[in-house]
């Protein structure tokens, strides 16, 4: 898959741009604390609502905090949330999906539970879960979004597994006397990985949007943490006087999610056509 990815990246300029941007954001996420021009928490009333210029590239907010520095630090939070939720969904989804497809009786029960979980609109389920945990915090956001997106991933993995199960090489493995565990671990799951990773890219994008929405609604991470969603929320009060407070963090959400969606599309195109239809 690495090779195909390289080929596609070269062939499609948009993908190349998207991947460069993702690499840049990842780098920013790692080194942000060392490169920010100002302390993102530093309150400086004299500089409040300062429009973007050379000293403050993205302007300052209502506390006089540097928006650029806060946006850079926000990258870390967004990426961490997106990747964690995607990882949780992939792990749980592959486990539940493959087991359900392989052992039909377990599958019948598990899939009913998943159907029920999917009957709740994403954001409402996430909000309800945040209400139970009772505390705003990154860990709880990741758990809530994981519970929301894992069933969706499990559905995909289930559909794929049902199809892969019918392929001849599974039959061949069974004919050679392979046990259930061996077939599942050595033959079924490895073939799930590529399509699930594609879906995981989209999940990562959705999770970043979901976390931003929770932060915007004031139930995500605590307000002092510089997250893009809560920055937009704080900026909305100053929408007439200082629109830059909400414009820049929002723009970064769009760019990051857009880059992930483009990457997902490219990966999907590189996928085995027999499985592509199921995504």
């Amino acid at each position, binding site marked *: 898959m690495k090779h195909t990815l390289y080929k596609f990246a070269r062939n499609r300029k948009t993908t190349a741009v998207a991947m460069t941007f993702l690499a840049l954001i990842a780098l920013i996420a790692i080194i942000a604390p060392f490169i920010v021009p100002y302390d993102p928490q530093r309150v400086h009333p004299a500089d409040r609502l300062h429009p973007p210029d050379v000293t403050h590239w993205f302007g300052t907010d209502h506390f006089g905090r540097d928006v650029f520095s806060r946006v850079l630090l926000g990258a870390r939070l967004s990426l961490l949330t997106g990747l964690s939720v995607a990882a949780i969904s992939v792990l749980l989804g592959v486990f539940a999906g493959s087991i359900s497809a392989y052992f039909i009786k377990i599958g019948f029960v598990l899939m009913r539970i998943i159907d029920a979980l999917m009957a709740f609109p994403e954001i*409402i389920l996430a909000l309800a879960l945040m209400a139970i945990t009772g505390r705003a915090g990154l860990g709880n956001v990741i758990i809530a979004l994981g519970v929301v997106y894992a069933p969706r991933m499990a559905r995909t993995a289930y559909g794929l597994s049902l199809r892969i199960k019918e392929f001849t090489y599974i039959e061949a493995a069974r004919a050679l006397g392979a046990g259930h565990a061996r077939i599942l671990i050595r033959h079924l799951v490895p073939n799930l990985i590529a399509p699930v990773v594609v879906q995981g890219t989209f999940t990562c994008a959705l999770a970043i949007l979901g976390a931003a929405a929770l932060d*915007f609604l004031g139930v995500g991470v605590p307000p002092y943490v510089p997250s893009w969603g809560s920055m937009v929320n704080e900026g909305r009060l100053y929408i007439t006087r200082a629109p830059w407070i909400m414009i820049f963090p929002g723009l970064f959400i769009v760019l990051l*999610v857009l880059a992930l969606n483009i990457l997902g599309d490219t990966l999907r195109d590189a996928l085995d056509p027999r499985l592509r239809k199921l995504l």
Partner: protein
Amino acid sequence: MVTFLIRRLAAMVPTLLLVLTISFFLIHLIPGDPAAVMLGPHATGEQVEALRHAMGLDQPVFVQFLKYINDVFHGDLGQSIFFHKPVSQVLLQRAETSVLLALCSMVVVLLIGIPTGILAAIRAGTWLDQFFLTVAILGASIPTFWLGLLLMLAFAVKLQLLPSSGFPSIFETGNITNLRYLILPSITLGFANSALLARMTRSNLLEILKEDYINAARAKGLAERVVILKHALRNAAIPVVTVMSFTFAGLLSGTVVTENVFALSGIGRLVVESVLRRDYPTIQGIMVVVSFLYLAINLITDIAYGILDPRIKYA
């Protein structure tokens, strides 16, 4: 058709029960005593005890569960802790805004999704197709709250063409022009959800335009407009109907954020307020109502298949 309906309804029963089970256990997953959590740190022991008793939390879980199921099927969603009123009443008061917002947004989705889908399919491979594709990916990547704020900034603050927030009830004032308060919210919500419909319309139409009967229709000299609108589009409609049910679910979810951006006091805003107020019975009630609605939409979609395609037999 009748047997199909009965079977389809029967298949919904386990899902419905599971939805209720999940909503029921929501309150039991709260760490500590739910009654104490809901009343906050200043409540006295007697108050907590009284609420525990009123909510039936002092009974065995199984008894509580049966009572809960029974209540829900009788339309009783419990008492709101904050409003001191039945949850069903609170929801009814807020329903107008949310229902109107969802319907107006659906209109926006249809107005954007279907024409762009058709155009992209007819002009497949051209710059127009590419342009729509780009806009669609962009639409899926913009957070609704941010788009809403940008539209508000442009059309309400700068151009002052439309109201920026709030929605005076049409039901109470009898003033239908209040719908203008829903224009920006509907565009916000509709735009974000129209990409899927556009993409689906495009790909289905492209498939169908390759069919022999389309060639036949063209060969007998029908105008391209008639071929597309009458022969192709109707056959492309089935998968599109599926997407519309998805879209409606997306709109249900999207109202939460949109109502908060535009200060509309609908059910979506109520959820967030209830989470912040720890009004668990209200959250529970909303979860139940919204998921029932979602399952009902799925059912209607299945029935709509049959009406659109007489070849589907409900055996």
